[in-house]
């Protein structure tokens, strides 16, 4: 892509962020503060740095992946500024951290992402640990006070902050599983091994993910996030081996786990909230307010800064799409859905164009991950699925999920570069 065109994309993305912040100020006070200019400059500098890194280490990439990503991050930043002006600078710093992480990925894997294959078992194990270990104490404590879904409160003395390690764990697990299945698909099966035995190990991986993540279900009651992990592991196995049976196995295991999960009070509470949020009391407040916010948004919304998103609990993280839906309406919500669709389409396109099996499976798996996380989060807040505390990737408030999202995008960019020119 020509430098002028890229500069126009950078300026356009930063302009959306700056204009959004200006509209928020204008909607709230009738005046525009200097924050709009600061956001425009800071976001523009971040994107310019990323584009420079892409030109340096992945010049052959399809940069179309970057722009829907940048716009999602910009919209998230605007809505966070709208709901929590004090939290917006922190989120801006996390955007900087995410871009730095993406640049690090491009630089570290400039010789190829195949190096990840050699540590695939470690990545998968590390991902699983990040997903389940932080929540295990809740199983011991019972209904402890700060058991807020997938969020963790980490503190030292008087200082504490909340984090959601789930997103980073999911990215590591995805890359690890992609590596494991690719190795198995490329290595010839052991002599004498029947095709059933070869297929069995793919099913065993899905079952292993199912078993090891069950404590997450019991500890958090987040049925949607847990089911997403099992479906993700099955789709990765399918992407590598092309075996449709493994997808059915994954769906069957989700069904069994869901029924077994009814023995947990947290899962039962999640289902109660899902079935009737308006009579679920405090537990259903998020979903109830989310539905009311989406309903009051109508076609074009109330306008940035002119809605009541502060009525939604944790509106910047878990329910940010509802807040956007209220202020930008159905048109804005559809635009966000289209942006996630474009990110997924670009990722799948990179996977289709890839020659190397590991690159192909990794690109497809990361695209599935982003798509599934979006479907889980959006489905939860629209009551299509049981409500989840899984924030929308790249859009919602939270440092770790945002950095994890940028890491996934950087890997896709790198893979796109490696496979460019071989179509």
């Amino acid at each position: 892509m020509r430098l002028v065109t890229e500069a126009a994309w950078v300026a356009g993305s930063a302009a959306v962020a700056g204009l959004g912040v200006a509209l928020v100020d204008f909607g709230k006070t009738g005046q525009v503060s200097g924050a709009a200019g600061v956001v425009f400059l800071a976001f523009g500098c971040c994107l310019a740095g990323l584009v420079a890194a892409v030109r340096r280490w992945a010049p052959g990439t399809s940069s179309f992946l970057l722009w829907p990503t940048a716009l999602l991050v910009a919209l998230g930043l605007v809505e966070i500024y709208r709901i929590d002006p004090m939290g917006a600078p922190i989120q801006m710093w996390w955007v900087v951290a995410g871009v730095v992480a993406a640049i690090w990925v491009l630089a570290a894997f400039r010789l190829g992402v195949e190096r990840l294959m050699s540590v695939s078992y470690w990545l998968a194990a590390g991902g699983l640990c990040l997903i389940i270990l932080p929540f295990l104490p809740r199983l011991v404590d019972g209904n402890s006070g700060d058991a807020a879904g997938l969020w963790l409160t980490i503190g030292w003395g008087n200082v504490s902050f909340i984090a959601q390690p789930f997103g980073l764990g999911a990215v590591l697990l995805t890359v690890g599983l992609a590596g494991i299945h690719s190795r198995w698909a490329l290595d010839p099966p052991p002599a004498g091994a029947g095709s059933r035995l070869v297929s069995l190990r793919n099913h065993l991986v899905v079952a292993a993910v199912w078993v090891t993540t069950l404590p997450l279900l019991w500890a958090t009651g987040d049925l949607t996030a847990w089911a997403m992990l099992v479906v993700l592991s099955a789709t990765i196995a399918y992407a590598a081996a092309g075996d449709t049976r493994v997808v059915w196995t994954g769906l069957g295991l989700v069904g069994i786990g869901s029924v077994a999960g009814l023995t947990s009070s947290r899962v039962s509470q999640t289902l109660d909230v899902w079935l009737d949020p308006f009579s679920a009391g405090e537990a259903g407040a998020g979903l109830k307010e989310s539905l009311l916010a989406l309903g009051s948004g109508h076609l074009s919304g109330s306008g940035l800064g002119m809605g009541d998103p502060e009525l939604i609990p944790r509106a910047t993280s878990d329910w940010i799409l509802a807040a956007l839906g209220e202020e930008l309406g159905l048109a804005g919500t559809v635009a966000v859905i289209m942006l996630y669709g474009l990110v997924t389409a670009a990722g799948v396109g990179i996977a289709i164009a890839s020659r190397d099996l590991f690159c192909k499976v990794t690109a497809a798996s990361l695209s599935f991950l982003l798509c599934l996380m979006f479907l889980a989060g959006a489905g939860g807040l629209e009551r299509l699925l049981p409500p989840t505390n899984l924030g929308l990737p790249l859009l919602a408030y939270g440092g770790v999920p945002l950095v994890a999202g940028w890491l996934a995008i950087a890997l896709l960019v790198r893979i796109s570069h490696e496979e460019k020119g071989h179509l």
Partner: protein
Amino acid sequence: MTDFVFTALPLIFLALIYLFVWYVAKGIASYLGLGDSVRTTRLGSRLVFVRSESQSGMHFTVADSVVLGKSPDADVPIDDPYASEFHLRISRRQGKLSASDLGSDNGTYLNGRRLRTPVDLARGDALQVGRTVLEVR
């Protein structure tokens, strides 16, 4: 006037987002080759060695029928100790490529599944012979 500004600005913001989405969608569609005819996109005409000890990047076009194997007498020799002398046949019928295993010892895998019967190939399919992987382009 103020009412007009309050109404117009959110719509302008939405229009800007949709303009952005439209240009990105056009670019991605172009990248994915969605403008090409479906037939050209879905049907492949050549095979590329995408993973091989010594043949990576080599490719060949199937006009009628070719036999691949370890034997020097095969139409397309494969440099792979796990391949059989005459491992598989790729033929073209009514414009479509199809692959059939010739009773090889270690089998032929199409997208990870072992070939039992002749199977039609599509663009993007991966054929594995021993450690060698070929892709239909």
